[in-house]
């Protein structure tokens, strides 16, 4: 899991983020708007990974709570050391009241160790009212509900160069077959349909996860994630076959994928001299495009949702941050209820940088069309699942040159060998999932 965070951080934008994290690693802010609510005099400690602009925006959310409740809330950033920082604090007997975790596995572990407080009935009702079932399930561990998802990311976005699409007469596709047809139109106009940066495997595992979630559905996805069904399962065959219809088509995929880094593949599509028209990855591609500076997100850099494969309902693969509480008191409970309410997210949403999984957040508040579209795809999805490679043991899902990553690179280079790929995945998984 951690290694996945790291590889994403190789993008320049997030690289700057790392710097900011190290610099602001121990900073904490107090917002002292002493209101006159029922919790006047109470002090709450809240921790999250956010720093810089994200910290400022989150503190504004907390300030809104202070005003409403009268409690004082202190925010501390733990950078990207959630597990260690919280572990030390719990051992020392002084965990924060509320923490935001980016890894569901960490929530499960803390819950199993008995460190987390289950949601109160009122908080649980607020979640049920505002979130779709996928998010409720993601906040549940072993049958008990612990978490409120506050922030989400969408990894089911297909970004395209609108200039090239327009001149080719291509448009956002209706489904996977139409997607291939649109890419063919682009290829006819002399540009590669899609650019893939497969220098490392993580973009490819994200491809697979999207197609698998669409073709096999959420339940199978969970089973495969936990290795309850083998990778040789027929459902994996279906997903790989679907992928092969694109990856095996040399007319559509820009050649040289295996030697292209992910940021380079973004430049191939949105750079000064584009060679391809489409690129798949999560909502963070907007940051890569802005860094590159040759295209403008929302103008000629647009996206559509990952196309539906075999007539599946909208499904989104992504990530997010979940709020969990460590203490059993009324003020903490009030904060958890507040975080589950649309009002909390609506403080941050207009500032940009927050995609809220909360269904009742007014999407008109998003600062631009693109982020609104990303959020609507997320809340409109019938199925939402966490990035599979982040949930599997890192020996399988997070090691460069081995396991899931490497086998998907090999599959990209030779998409004809579906059975062999499945066997290789199963062998790698069998070795990695040891209890």
């Amino acid at each position: 899991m951690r290694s996945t965070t790291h590889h994403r951080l190789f993008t320049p934008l997030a690289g700057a983020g790392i710097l900011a994290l190290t610099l602001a690693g121990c900073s904490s802010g107090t917002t002292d708007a002493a209101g006159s609510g029922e919790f006047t005099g109470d002090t709450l400690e809240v921790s999250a990974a956010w720093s810089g602009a994200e910290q400022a925006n989150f503190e504004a959310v907390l300030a809104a709570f202070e005003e409403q409740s009268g409690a004082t809330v202190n925010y501390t950033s733990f950078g990207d050391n959630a597990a260690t920082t919280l572990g030390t604090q719990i051992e020392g007997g002084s965990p924060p009241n509320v923490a935001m975790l980016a890894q569901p596995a960490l929530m499960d572990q803390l819950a199993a160790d008995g460190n987390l407080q289950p949601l109160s009935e009122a908080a649980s009702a607020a979640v049920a009212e505002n979130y779709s079932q996928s998010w409720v399930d993601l906040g549940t561990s072993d049958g008990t509900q612990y978490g409120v998802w506050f922030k989400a990311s969408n990894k089911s976005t297909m970004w395209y160069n609108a200039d090239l699409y327009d001149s080719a007469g291509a448009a956002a596709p209706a489904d996977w077959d139409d997607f291939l047809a649109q890419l063919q139109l682009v290829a006819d106009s002399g540009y590669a349909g899609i650019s893939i940066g497969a220098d490392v495997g993580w973009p490819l595992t994200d491809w697979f996860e999207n197609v698998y979630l669409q073709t096999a559905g959420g339940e199978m996805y969970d089973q495969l994630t936990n290795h309850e069904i083998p990778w040789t399962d027929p459902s994996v065959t279906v997903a790989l076959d679907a992928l092969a219809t694109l990856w095996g088509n040399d007319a559509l995929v820009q050649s040289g994928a295996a030697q292209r880094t992910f940021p380079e593949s973004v430049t191939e599509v949105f750079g000064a001299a584009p060679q391809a028209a489409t690129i798949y990855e999560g909502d963070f591609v907007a940051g890569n495009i802005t860094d590159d500076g040759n295209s403008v997100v929302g103008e000629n850099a647009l996206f559509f949702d990952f196309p539906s494969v075999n007539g599946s309902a909208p499904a989104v693969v992504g990530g997010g941050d979940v709020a969990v509480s460590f203490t059993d008191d009324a003020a903490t409970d009030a904060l958890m209820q507040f975080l589950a309410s649309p009002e909390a997210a609506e403080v941050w949403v207009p500032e940009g940088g927050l995609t809220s999984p909360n269904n009742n957040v007014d999407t008109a508040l998003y600062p631009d069309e693109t982020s609104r579209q990303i959020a609507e795809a997320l809340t409109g999805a019938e199925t939402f699942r966490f990035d599979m490679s982040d949930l599997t043991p890192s020996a399988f899902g997070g090691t460069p040159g081995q396991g899931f990553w490497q086998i998907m690179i090999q599959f990209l280079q030779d998409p004809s060998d579906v059975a062999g790929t499945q066997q290789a995945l199963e062998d790698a998984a069998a070795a990695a999932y040891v209890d």
Partner: protein
Amino acid sequence: MFLIALGFLAPALVLLAGLVLYPILYTVVRSFFSADGGAFVGWDNYVTMFTNDSTFTAIRNNVIWVLVAPVACTVLGLLFAVLLEKIKWSTAFKLIIFMPMAISMLAAGVIFRGMFQESPNLGVVNAAVVAVNSAFGGGDAAYPGANPRTDVGLINDGGVIASEAAVGAGTEVNFPLVGVRADNVPASAAQAESADTASADQITGTVWLDVVIGGGGTNGQIDDGKTGLPGIRVDAVDASGTIAATTETDAAGRYVLAGLGTETYRIALPASNFDEGYQGVSWLSSGLITAVIILSYIWIWAGFAMVMIASGLSAIDRSLQEAARMDGANEWKVFSRITAPLLAPVLIVVFVTLIINVLKIFDLVYVIPPGASKPAANVIAVEMWTVSFGGGSNQGLGSALAILLLILVLPSMIINVRKFRQERKS
């Protein structure tokens, strides 16, 4: 007396024990435990090490490294040292050859990765290869990468776009093409037009870009907004394969092949119209990656070998060479019979040092290969790092690999230590 000696030795002994002995012993112990260190697994990690594919590649690559790199560095170093002795400005040349030693391996790796990038726009090596190729006339086609529209009776046969069926004179053969960028169409091109009806000894037709900018139009038909492709060579090829007539398309893409007989012809647009040119060599692909990394290693370490050998060279007795020359030996004889044997002790030290160094190679192999060819470039040290810290989180297996590396390095270490001891005695 013993106590005083021990007192003086103590700091060094403590450091040695703490920083060398203890880690080695702990690694040995750790290699017998499972990934999380909880369970004793006996020789399992060692068995995994030799049965697992990626470790096997790593060991094989290490063998290649040991066979190639030290020999190449030593030979090159010897050549440089001996030859540079005979020229003016030798110090300047030595400085240049030695300079890569001053660059960190990591930085050198980044440089080499950049140089060997596949795209000629990024990698200087492929840029040079492509430049040489195009100097000899490759890659100057007017419409690189064009393809026929599918399902209209045209085939792309290794770059030649031709009609599937052979036709007789008096017919019309059209070529709707795709995959040509609008910017690649010359300014002289005009709206595509249907060719005139062919007379009895003619075959006519149109070659056009079957794409309307902004979309629309019917595939395979000449619509408004579709441009003709001028300047394309069109051949009529008869059954025996000889070209019976040839012509070029006009601004509207039309062509007329005249003077044809009664037999049937296949109409072909030769590959010279569409040649994408030489794209360079895929240096960083699985097949060549180890060679590229070894090359970068040689670039760095040949300078080291040269400096060591040159210092040995300056210490040998010149009168022996002079004597050999007086006796009529040519320069090659002098080198192979006198200079090289005298240099042998230095050569062995350089060679063995390089073997030790090469066995432990990590940074270049870690930096140069792109992800796709990482497994092909794997060596033991990189594998050790990957399985223990790079995501594998299996420090049991990692320790076993570290011990293997230690065992492999030991013989050369012992040879080197003996060598030093002998030298001190003599």
